[in-house]
């Protein structure tokens, strides 16, 4: 039974009674055993073949290392394959899933309040607000809008973003007539990042809501899906969290569209496979999920990990850990993978994708500490381990390839015969080369089988087939996606290896925002990001060519991705090529062929705003200029600051920041006399946090003769003259 009773807050009505629907422990264990044992069986058999191949060429310490690496790496791809196989079979047999455990659609949500929270940190504000608008309007159509409140929870540290967020928020509220329905809050300090942001929300308003749904900055959710999630939670009072599987949407570049296509085509069978063994012991991906507030508040306040970075300190990838903590407290965590209408966007370029991986890598590696925590469920440890190996696999692959190269060099150097004995394989009657080829074919089959199964699954579903532009188009897309993945995978290997090494050595990888042109990554930026990859590919390729020409051809797929990384990165970042592919029917997804209303509305609004120039980057310090000079922006900003002071925690944080001290007055004088270029960002933030100084600044900037103001202010004021 859950360690805390479900919410019984009188403000949100009585909570439903507890009825457990979890599988009996034995049946659950059987599922886990069956699933993982399949992967172990497959790994065992293929590893035997590989060991035999090594035996034929003669045992050596490096051979043993190679075999160990092979076993680990093959087990990882075997697990992926089994997810596909189990998922494929289960999709044909309508397996046990949360949405068919009980009739949830007739569940009433009368008296239930839910908060939709949008934690943001220096994001593209227009996109955040338009995503929120699309969700709001969709929810309005369900007739259940009054059951939901929206919160934009800002952690932005860029003064200009802060002001823009307030401006866009008020515009949104006015245009939707949603004052008192859509709220905005910026934290004074962004300690503990996103998890701290959510915790701050829960500490301030959480008790008002039985549930909250976490959005990402680029998330959109259909109103009906949100209502269904609340109904699901009401129907399953033991569920602490229900994660949806967001569809990747709105990609324009070739890279983005390939990722989007892969997500939409392959995810259904993979997630169904995942659900087979996880059941009510699923995972949380940090957004597009509904959470039972009280369960979360009582169990998921994350502790600081002991020791120093990279493993100690704040838990970075908090979502996996929060799911583990809910499970530890006997709440269930489910994946409602069959609920449509949950969307997110993905990086549009290889470089942006790697940049995101850099962040996630450190968080996942940190889970190596958490995985040992006492009291965690075994399945939570499995989720954490999979996250770790998602990144650790890359250096292991690199090590595997290097070990193989070493063996090749050693053989060549010593002049030893390559095939020494006939052993196990005489039962199969294959030569040494055929033996190696057989293992290669099996590996490829294990890698590609889930993709083939996803296509077969599509072939059985006429509606989905049409949504992907027909089976031929989908198959063409899958082939092209596979070819691209083959080129991209070696780069991922190098990138992830670098990230893992940087994490282990506690040295950060400095990575500023990539330089983009209007249509993707600039060539100069691609050279800067990929010159090392190209060089590694060339040197490695030449070295293998000199060692063994036959082996060289086996390594061509690995080297090719590295050698062509610069043009690959640039070309796949191009929206034009993405559109070309779309016109020729490649990588079509259901959301492209038949855009859902909420996405169509979002895209239409974004197109209008782009045409109006509202998405274009603003000049530096434009936010500061607005907050001081614009009478409305100043009033909004000051009103929000004054309201903030009513919360003792915020008032304390403002005081700690230095608000109200004489220094702020001196900084204001400096700002007027010398302009914002003479102030550091922290000083600007301090001024902008002072609700008493800002009205004074507003008055002074307009009142003082131009000659006493910095030239920058004179220019800004002139912009108001028409």
């Amino acid at each position, binding site marked *: 039974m859950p360690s805390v009773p479900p919410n019984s807050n009188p403000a949100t009505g009585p909570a439903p009674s507890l009825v457990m629907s979890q599988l009996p422990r034995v049946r659950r264990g059987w599922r886990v055993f069956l699933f993982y044992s399949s992967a172990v069986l497959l790994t065992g058999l293929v590893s035997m073949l590989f060991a035999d191949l090594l035996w034929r060429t003669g045992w050596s310490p490096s051979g043993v290392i190679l075999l160990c690496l092979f076993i680990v790496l093959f087990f990882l791809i075997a697990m992926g394959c089994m997810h596909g196989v189990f998922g494929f079979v289960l999709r044909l047999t309508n397996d046990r899933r949360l949405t068919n455990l009980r009739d949830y659609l007739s569940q009433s949500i009368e008296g239930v309040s839910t908060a939709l929270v949008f934690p943001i940190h220096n994001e593209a504000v227009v996109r955040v607000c338009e995503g929120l608008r699309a969700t709001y309007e969709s929810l309005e159509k369900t007739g259940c809008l009054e059951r939901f409140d929206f919160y934009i929870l800002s952690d932005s540290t860029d003064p200009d973003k802060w002001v823009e967020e307030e401006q866009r928020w008020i515009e949104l509220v006015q245009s939707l007539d949603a004052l008192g329905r859509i709220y905005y809050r910026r934290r004074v300090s962004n300690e503990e990042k996103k998890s701290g942001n959510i915790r701050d929300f829960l500490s301030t308003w959480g008790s008002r809501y039985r549930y909250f749904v976490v959005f990402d900055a680029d998330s959109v959710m259909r109103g009906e899906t949100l209502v269904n999630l609340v109904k699901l939670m009401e129907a399953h009072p033991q569920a602490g969290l229900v994660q949806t599987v967001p569809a990747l949407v709105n990609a324009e570049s070739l890279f983005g569209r390939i990722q989007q296509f892969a997500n939409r085509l392959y995810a259904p069978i993979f997630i169904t496979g995942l659900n087979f063994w996880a059941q009510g012991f699923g995972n949380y991906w940090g957004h597009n999920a509904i959470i039972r507030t009280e369960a979360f508040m009582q169990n998921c306040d994350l502790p600081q990990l002991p020791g120093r970075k990279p493993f100690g300190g704040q838990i970075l990838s908090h979502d996996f850990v929060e799911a583990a903590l809910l499970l530890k407290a006997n709440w269930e965590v489910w994946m409602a993978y069959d609920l449509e209408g949950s969307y997110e966007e993905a990086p549009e370029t290889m470089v942006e994708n790697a940049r995101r991986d850099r962040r996630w890598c450190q968080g996942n590696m940190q889970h190596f500490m958490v995985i040992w925590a006492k009291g965690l469920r075994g399945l939570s440890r499995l989720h954490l381990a999979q996250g770790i190996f998602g990144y650790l696999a890359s250096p292991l692959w690199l090590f595997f390839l290097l070990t193989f190269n070493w063996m090749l060099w050693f053989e060549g150097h010593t002049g030893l015969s390559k095939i020494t004995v006939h052993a196990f394989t005489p039962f199969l009657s294959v030569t040494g080369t055929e033996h190696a080829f057989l293992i290669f074919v099996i590996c490829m089959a294990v890698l590609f089988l889930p993709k083939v199964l996803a296509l077969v699954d599509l072939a059985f579903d006429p509606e989905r087939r049409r949504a992907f532009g027909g089976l031929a188009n989908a198959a063409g897309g899958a082939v092209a996606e596979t070819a691209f993945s083959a080129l991209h995978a070696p780069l991922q290997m190098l990138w992830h290896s670098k990230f893992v090494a940087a994490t282990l050595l506690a040295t950060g990888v400095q990575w500023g925002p990539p330089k983009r042109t209007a249509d993707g990554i600039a060539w100069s930026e691609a050279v800067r990001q990929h010159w090392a990859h190209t060089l590694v590919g060339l040197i490695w390729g030449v070295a293998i060519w000199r060692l063994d020409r036959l082996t060289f051809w086996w390594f061509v797929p690995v080297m090719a991705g590295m050698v062509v990384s610069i043009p690959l990165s640039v070309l796949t970042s191009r929206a034009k090529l993405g559109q070309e592919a779309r016109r020729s029917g490649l990588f079509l997804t259901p959301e492209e062929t038949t855009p859902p209303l909420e996405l169509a509305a979002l895209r239409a609004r974004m197109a209008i705003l782009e045409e109006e120039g509202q998405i274009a980057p603003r000049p530096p310090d434009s936010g500061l200029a607005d907050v001081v000079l614009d009478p409305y922006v100043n009033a909004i900003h000051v*009103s929000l600051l004054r309201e903030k002071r009513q919360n003792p925690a915020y008032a304390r944080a403002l005081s700690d920041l230095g608000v109200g001290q004489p220094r702020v007055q001196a900084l204001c004088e400096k700002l007027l006399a010398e302009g914002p270029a003479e102030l550091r960002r922290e000083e600007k933030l301090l001024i902008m946090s002072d609700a008493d100084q800002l009205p004074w600044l507003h*008055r002074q900037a307009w009142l003082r003769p131009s000659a006493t103001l910095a030239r920058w202010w004179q220019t800004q004021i002139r912009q108001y003259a028409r």
Partner: protein
Amino acid sequence: MSETARIDAPGQLAGRPLEEWNGAYSKVESYFHALRVLNKVLLGQLVALVLERAMQRSASEPLRSATELAVEEMDRLFNEWFAQVLQAPPSGAEMLSTRGRMALLLADMPGRWQDQFLRPGPWPDEFVLAMRDGYLRAGPNFQLAQMTPRPLDLGPIATLTHWSGLPYVKMTMSWALFGLLLVLIFYVTHQ
């Protein structure tokens, strides 16, 4: 213009050069632009109203620039008007100014009520209501609660000393046996 303005010497207005008043005019007009008062007739009237008040003070405060006087008068005019419309209790000028500007925005003065702005009452009920309801709420009432981190016992040694307590130990053991079997087969077939 007022009597004060008319008795000036050539090239002067209220005892100051025309150029100085021109600067003041620009500043006041810019501020009204910032308030999105875009109707030219209304704009002209409001700027003239502000400047007239500034000119009345001009003779008694010769050390202060026309712009300063004009902006100060504009500020006063706004606050007097806000106090009337909002029926605000006596509070600091800056507090009232902020609340008033906020109310103008939320009541959509620039879009619907430009003609009412700074006009003496009575005003349309709808306008007054919109102005008085024009409070900005960034969030509902706080309902403060405390989340307390629960300590995690991370000691791997402590966990490793409790092998029997590890989950799926039987499953892991069966895999280990399977692995041993493979090693055995390999050994037998490679003699």
